[in-house]
């Protein structure tokens, strides 16, 4: 019995959920926050998949959480630079602040699409074009079918794909590999990881402190 179990475990085709040394292990993009990196299977933001950030409110630190990774991506050495695509931000994204964070502005692409279908279509086009290093999209009204579609499109490339949704969508089923609920407290930004590769839920307090 034990021998057969070991034989089974030694087959390369078996994927073990608890095994951190799997094929995802090297694909993470460092988030810039050590405690968050330690909690993520690849040591950072997973690429080629959809990441969901769930927000109780706008402007609580959701952009600051992404800036270090975006900084890395806008300085990737490449003969043909890729975009950071901002999909219909709910407020005016202020370029001087992006520049202060060290992002190169000539690689930022701001899209303003009014209808839901235009927004989702744009995200899908941007993913399959493989010409975006990162996509940050505000999609409050996305459904499960479109999430699956975008996740499939994301798998074709290696784009950092972050969708920002209201905290109320927490209960919805989602194919996203990583789901994080953000919460602002007087002492800083708390992260509650709802879903991640190779691990259960986890709360990381004060990732950004005041």
């Amino acid at each position, binding site marked *: 019995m034990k021998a057969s179990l070991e034989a089974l475990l030694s087959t390369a085709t078996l994927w073990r959920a608890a095994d951190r040394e799997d094929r995802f292990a090297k694909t993470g993009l460092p988030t810039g926050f050590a405690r968050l990196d330690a909690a993520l299977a690849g040591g950072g933001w997973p690429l080629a998949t959809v990441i969901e950030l769930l927000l109780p*409110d*706008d*402007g*609580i*630190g*959701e*952009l*600051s959480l992404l800036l270090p990774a975006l900084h890395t991506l806008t300085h990737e050495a490449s*003969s*043909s630079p*890729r*975009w950071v695509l901002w999909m219909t*931000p709910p*407020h*005016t*994204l*202020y*370029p*001087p*602040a*992006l*520049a*202060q964070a060290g992002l190169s*502005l*000539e690689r*930022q*692409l*701001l*899209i*303003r*699409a009014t209808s839901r279908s*235009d927004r989702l*279509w*744009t995200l*899908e*086009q*941007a*993913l*399959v*074009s*493989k*010409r*975006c290093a990162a996509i940050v999209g505000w999609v409050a009204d996305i459904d499960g079918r479109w999430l699956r579609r975008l996740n499939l*499109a994301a798998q074709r490339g290696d784009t950092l794909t972050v969708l920002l949704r209201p905290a109320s969508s927490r209960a919805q089923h989602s194919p996203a590999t990583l789901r994080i609920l953000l919460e*602002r*407290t*007087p*002492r*800083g*930004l708390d992260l509650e990881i709802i879903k991640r590769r190779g691990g259960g839920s986890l709360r990381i307090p004060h990732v950004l402190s*005041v």
Partner: protein
Amino acid sequence: MRRRPSHGGVGSTGDLFLAEVPPAAPTNTHPNHAPRTSRLWLALEFPQLPAVVIEEGVDSPVVVVDGPAHAEVVVACNRAARAVDIQMGMRLGIARLRSDVLRVITRRLDREQAYLGVLARQAQRFTPFVSLEPPQALLLEIKGSRALFGGLNALCETVREYYRSLGHEVHDATAVTARGALWLARTEQRLITETQDALRQHLAVTAIEVAQWPASVNALCERIGVRLLGELRRLPREGLAARLGLDTLRTLDEAHGDRPEARRRHVVAERFSASLDLPAETHSAQCLLPASDHLLASMESFLRRRDSGVMQLTLRCLHRAHPATLLRLGRAWPSARADEWRELVSERLPQLRLAAPTERLQLRSGPCLPLETLHRDLPGHAPTIESAAFETTRLLERLRARLGDDAVQGMRLIAEHRPERAYRHQRPETSVIPTDLEGLRPLPPRPLWLVDPPKPLQLQQGRPWLDGPLVLTRGPERIESGWWDGDAIARDYYVAAAQRGRQLWIFRTRLEDQLHWFLHGVFA
């Protein structure tokens, strides 16, 4: 006195052009260095294309004319006009002398261009690569098609016969360069060449008029006694560049294969459409799957022949005495593969509510699109630089086409102290080297969200208030600017801690002798 440019003709102006003249052709002296071409072009010129505006079945003479007023020239005519000895190239005045009832139509280049597109679509049965050469020629890349049609001569004969059967006169020629084939076609001698040497031999004895250069170039050649392309090419290049212009020289090089010529492929919006009778009427959408598989398989072979894919398709379930039920499917990249489409169909079809029993299933595709090489890249292989730049442009074009120009923007900084004017949106491809932005980096932190226009804040107990008291944590930063353009500001900015730990960017300003607080940003 006329001076031939060959002997000492290159004076000071010649030197001026020297730097810009493309490198001399490595032709006769170094035949081994000649570029190895891997393409073969069939040029088709349709001399009667201007006649597209003449209705068919008219018995009275009709001519199409082009040119300046009072100097119009006949560019096409119908059979009745030819019967009274009206010819192409004839002055309109002379043509009028031959017929009292002559109808004259002005040339319509837009109609010709549209019709050239129709001819291009027909040409796609011979090769997937068809390029338009307005006003009246097509260029077909036929290297891969020769074997299919039993050799080069047989292919040319088939193409010629095909267009003749549709009622089009056509002049054709083949050559290893597109422009060379076009020029040979204009000699109306049906020259079939397969090598660069043969092409050059024929071009050498061809009159320069086939190039259709501007009249000034032709006049100049006449003055220096040059009639043939071969004579022209024997003249020193610097002199040619100086006298005829670099464009003329470029086309000459392209025709001879000394310089590659970029040609744009004509994309034709073809669609696949087919339908199938079901063996028995059915109420269940699930039972339609085998029929849809069959249709998808024929679509795949249709698309494979055209080297294309589609991004949309529509399945119509046709009922007796009931409007059809539609299922529309779309994907983000063109695909020809039946199995990829089947995946989508099998996901959506079973959910379809059929209003009545289905007796017939119809499949209609969206426009055929070329399968881009990038999509055929092997997984794990980085795309090449060219295809990456191409994809970038294509992405921006697609987004603009659907969302509008204003919805797709890049951003840049402006050297300006007023915060709401310190940036500008622009077309994303415009790369601007930031000038005079010093003094920007040392600025105190700026918020990621700008509240624009600034939102007035309430005051309670003399303190700014937003769902609770705001605690000033940093500041003030005095910004005074704009007095010169009538939009002056004098503000004291602070970072303030709000409820639930939010960080706000607020300012205080004096309006009508009173202090007011405004919210101008959120540190997101």
